[in-house]
């Protein structure tokens, strides 16, 4: 293999790292030789790190990230502090992740009264209300159903609320915009269970309720429940994590995260919405005229550059890759444009994963940084023609008190010294 093929232009100082690797290996080899180990006179003097000369660790029942990657952790958002340490959100560190699947252990999660410790043998899902046959399902029963597998994002309606702070917060991208994640979900089409219960014609809504100590509840239009709603049991191939709703959650692809009720214990068919706390007092969008929009379910078309992003520093001049995530509750991402000059000019980025509806797409664009100031932005367009709005246009629509459904364009500035900052542009 030629040396050039080992060097990846977009990575910081790759050739230097490789030289260091070789030099260190040579030093070890030299050291062994100079120790005068005559018995090993024939030992290999080829380059090799210590781990190449030691037998590795035994098998591991449940694998963990490399110990060198331990700092990759979720960002906490705890509005009530230690008073309610499980109330708020843990946001995905999107600035440290790649691809379109969020690892289960780093998936964002929002909870209102902490994460319950549910024994699946004691947990049941009740379907009742305006149905012909009220039914209760054990977890063993649900696990016996034919299932479907799909990749979908889940985004909290309040994601990016920190991008509405009076001054731009100089914190990582995930701490601002990471209240969303994307997983492969496996479970039962909700329609299957509703057909077994026999939903009556007068039923138009489902009250979905969790078994957490907040008994978090939302009204779901029956139309969505019969469309692509899933009773999710698995995430990324394994049973749901507790913070994702173990042993069973509702998945409403593309709709605000709060409605994807975790720890699902009850579905009640009703003729009207129940007007729960989380669809009146919260998750309603206050307009400037003092009226609030209610039942705004679909998450808008959105994108964010994850690298380079806020708090990072570009270590050198040269070729970089601008990359990030795009998604829309309306279906598929059709296009992501990237600007390095604050929106004066745009270039189309390459997409990965755009064939899946209501899932993350990864975008990429090569960019040569020559040391000047830059203003990085991304702008997504979905298959319905929805275009991610400019920040000032989005803000103009809402009361200063509204924190929901902020899908406006995110801006990162690059200074001459390479420092990347969160800015409002």
């Amino acid at each position: 293999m030629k040396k050039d093929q080992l060097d990846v232009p977009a990575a910081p100082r790759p050739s230097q790292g490789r030289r260091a690797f070789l030099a260190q290996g040579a030093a070890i080899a030299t050291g062994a030789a100079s120790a005068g180990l005559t018995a090993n006179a024939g030992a290999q003097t080829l380059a090799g790190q210590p781990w190449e000369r030691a037998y590795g660790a035994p098998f591991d029942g449940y694998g963990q990230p490399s110990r060198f990657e331990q700092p990759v952790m979720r960002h906490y958002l705890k509005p009530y502090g230690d008073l309610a340490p499980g109330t708020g959100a843990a946001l995905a560190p999107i600035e440290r992740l790649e691809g379109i699947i969020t690892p289960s252990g780093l998936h964002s999660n929002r909870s209102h009264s902490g994460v319950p410790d549910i024994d699946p043998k004691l947990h049941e899902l009740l379907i009742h209300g305006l149905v012909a046959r009220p039914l209760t399902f054990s977890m063993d029963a649900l696990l016996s159903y034919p299932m479907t597998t799909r990749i979908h994002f889940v985004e909290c309606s309040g994601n990016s609320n920190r991008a509405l702070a009076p001054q731009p917060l100089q914190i990582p991208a995930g701490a601002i915009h990471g209240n969303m994640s994307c997983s492969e979900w496996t479970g039962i089409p909700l329609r299957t269970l509703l057909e077994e219960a026999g939903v009556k014609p007068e039923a138009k809504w489902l009250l979905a309720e969790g078994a957490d100590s907040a008994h978090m509840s939302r009204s779901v239009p029956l139309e969505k429940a019969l469309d692509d709603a899933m009773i999710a049991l698995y995430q990324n191939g394994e049973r749901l994590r507790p913070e994702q709703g173990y042993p069973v959650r509702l998945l409403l692809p593309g709709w605000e995260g709060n409605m994807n009720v975790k720890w699902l214990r009850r579905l009640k068919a009703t003729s009207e919405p129940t007007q729960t706390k989380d669809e009146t007092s919260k998750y309603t969008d206050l307009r400037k005229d003092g009226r609030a929009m209610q039942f705004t379910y679909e998450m808008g078309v959105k994108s964010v550059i994850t690298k380079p992003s806020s708090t990072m520093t570009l270590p050198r001049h040269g070729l970089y890759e601008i990359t990030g995530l795009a998604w829309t509750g309306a279906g598929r991402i059709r296009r992501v444009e990237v600007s390095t000059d604050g929106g004066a000019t745009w270039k189309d980025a390459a997409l990965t994963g755009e064939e899946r509806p209501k899932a993350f797409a990864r975008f990429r664009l090569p960019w040569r940084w020559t040391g000047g100031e830059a203003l990085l932005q991304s702008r997504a367009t979905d298959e319905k023609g929805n275009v991610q709005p400019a920040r000032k246009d989005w803000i103009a629509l809402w009361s200063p008190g509204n924190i929901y459904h902020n899908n406006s364009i995110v801006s990162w500035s690059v200074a001459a010294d390479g420092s990347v900052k969160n800015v409002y542009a």
Partner: protein
Amino acid sequence: MYTRDHVVACIGAVILAACATQTGPAGPDLGRAASAEEIAARDISIPPSGAGLPAGAGTARQGAAVYAAKCVSCHGDKGAGKPADPLAGGIGTLATAKPVRTVGSYWPHATTLFDYVRRAMPLREPLSLTNDEVYAVSAYVLWLNGIVREDERMDAKTLPLVKMPNRDGFVDEWSKR
């Protein structure tokens, strides 16, 4: 699951091929019939009609003691808030540059207050209040906002009739789409 009606309908149509393609209930039908008692024990949601509100009653005067014992440490004196959300005040601020959203200024239905207090409060002891206490503390929060009188009895009949100041402040975006 193919019900008897479904089979009869197909035979009645005398198009057997249609039976094979017709989309009917496809699940293995592993649910267990839920009894009325089981349902009643779990059905805690209260819609604006008040359907499902339990027996019991309370006034703001009675609720003051519940609030002092169970709520004030998080929601503050007279529902002023801090560290948790404010419960009172803010009426008339929603269209201003500094909207204050409380039960009084923002919540459209009084039934939601009973529902949420019963299902989720106090934060560390949910489901610990009696129905009388939930009615009473709901009455107290409504009284703090000037919505009910101090001795007005809140129960399954009266609570749904309470007209919240912001009852008409919401636009149903789903139904109007």
